[in-house]
């Protein structure tokens, strides 16, 4: 991996963005669609910085993964409420059509997927960690890629599953896409799996795939730590595992 430094790089601009639509995904997670004139597009898995400005000029900036498949001029974010937080309560509770904010990006060149990558893909999501992985699932189906994609998604209860209907539909209509859900606090009445945190039997071994997959793990830090440990124990090469952590512990 070497990149030559040639002419001085240009600073990444802030783009004015307008809220085009917003809806609740769960009681505490909301999807916000942003119209961003000039947005150059992104790779599935990348994130943006979002800047909010109060009327006296005070600003706060936080990072959010892009949930939508790559496209220009438009971005979709999904934000989980952090009750005492500064930025997420506005995005989850306040944002409505016509509101203005700023975004900058795309950022993150490692935790990303595109159709030039031929390997099978294993996606492991904890809670709102599903957001950048959903961008990959959406992009895969948009471009008609066919390699195996296996999403293992851990949520507290079925009510906490973000994109629940779309995942259900995609898993039935996209050949090679498998979606497994698991619940840490309580599942559906006919669930075979006992509720609980991620266990070794919840994740596929490396030889469950026709070729070793690229693995993307995203969620709270404790979840990522546990999942990565299990994956290595099941034969996945640590160099094939890419991680992204949202927020602090557990």
């Amino acid at each position, binding site marked *: 991996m070497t990149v030559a430094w040639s002419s001085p790089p240009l600073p990444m601009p802030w783009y004015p963005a307008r809220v085009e639509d917003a809806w609740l995904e769960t009681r505490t997670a909301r999807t916000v669609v942003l119209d961003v004139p000039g947005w150059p597009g992104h790779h599935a898995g990348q994130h943006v910085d979002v800047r909010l400005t109060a009327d006296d000029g005070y600003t706060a900036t936080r990072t959010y993964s892009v949930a939508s498949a790559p496209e220009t001029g438009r971005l979709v974010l999904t934000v989980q409420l952090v009750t005492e937080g500064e930025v997420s309560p506005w995005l989850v509770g306040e944002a409505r059509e016509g509101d203005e904010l700023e975004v900058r990006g795309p950022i993150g060149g490692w935790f990303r997927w595109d159709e030039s990558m031929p390997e099978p893909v294993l996606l492991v999501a904890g809670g709102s960690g599903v957001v950048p992985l959903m961008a990959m699932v959406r992009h895969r189906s948009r471009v008609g890629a066919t390699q195996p994609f296996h999403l293992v998604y851990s949520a507290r209860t079925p009510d906490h599953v973000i994109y629940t209907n779309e995942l259900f539909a995609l898993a039935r209509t996209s050949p090679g896409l498998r979606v497994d859900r698991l619940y840490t606090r309580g599942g559906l009445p006919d669930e075979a799996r006992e509720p609980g945190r991620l266990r070794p039997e919840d994740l596929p071994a490396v030889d469950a795939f026709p070729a070793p997959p690229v693995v993307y793990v995203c969620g709270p830090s404790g979840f990522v730590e546990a999942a990565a440990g299990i994956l290595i124990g099941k034969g996945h090469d640590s160099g094939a595992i890419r991680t992204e952590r949202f927020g*602090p512990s557990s």
Partner: protein
Amino acid sequence: MDIVTRGFVGRRSGGDPRIPPGQYLERDFPVLSAGPTPVVRREDWTLRVTGVDGSSGRLSWADLHRLPVEDVRTDIHCVTKWSKLDTSWRGVDVEAVLSAAGVGTEGATHVLAHATGGYTTNLPLADLLGGRAWVATEYEGASLAAEHGGPARLLVPHLYFWKSAKWVSGLELLAQDSPGFWEQLGYHEYGDPWREQRYVGD
């Protein structure tokens, strides 16, 4: 200021002059890394130092612990916007590490820090000298936890924390700058939190 976000007031817990622009105060200690946490045992840990002339030296865990340790109380700043104030560390000054490795710094202007797992990050040599950088092995009075880079990480608190390579395994002296892992993936080559040098071109 042209864009105002309707209804946003902000928490404004900031205001502490020790918090750089664009950062917020964090009390937890978030973990960020590109891949799984490597397990490096102290018995296996070594730090390889290479000079621009091809010379090299190697320090084991025991070698490192024969050098004078320093207690460091400092603020740290992550490019993902959090800052932690008054963290305490114990480690060995990088200048002492370089001289113990027996590798001269003549002709070197930059250093590429290497870490177990293949991570790299580049820094000007001057930023590692003069008592501003350490190879840290303890955090808040205990051995450094693996997810925070244990057994040993670089500690360069005046730059964004991705420069403080976790699981540090090598210091490669260079006659010119050469971008590391995140620096090739769009992050700033220097990373001064006070100038908000987050991304390439900032």
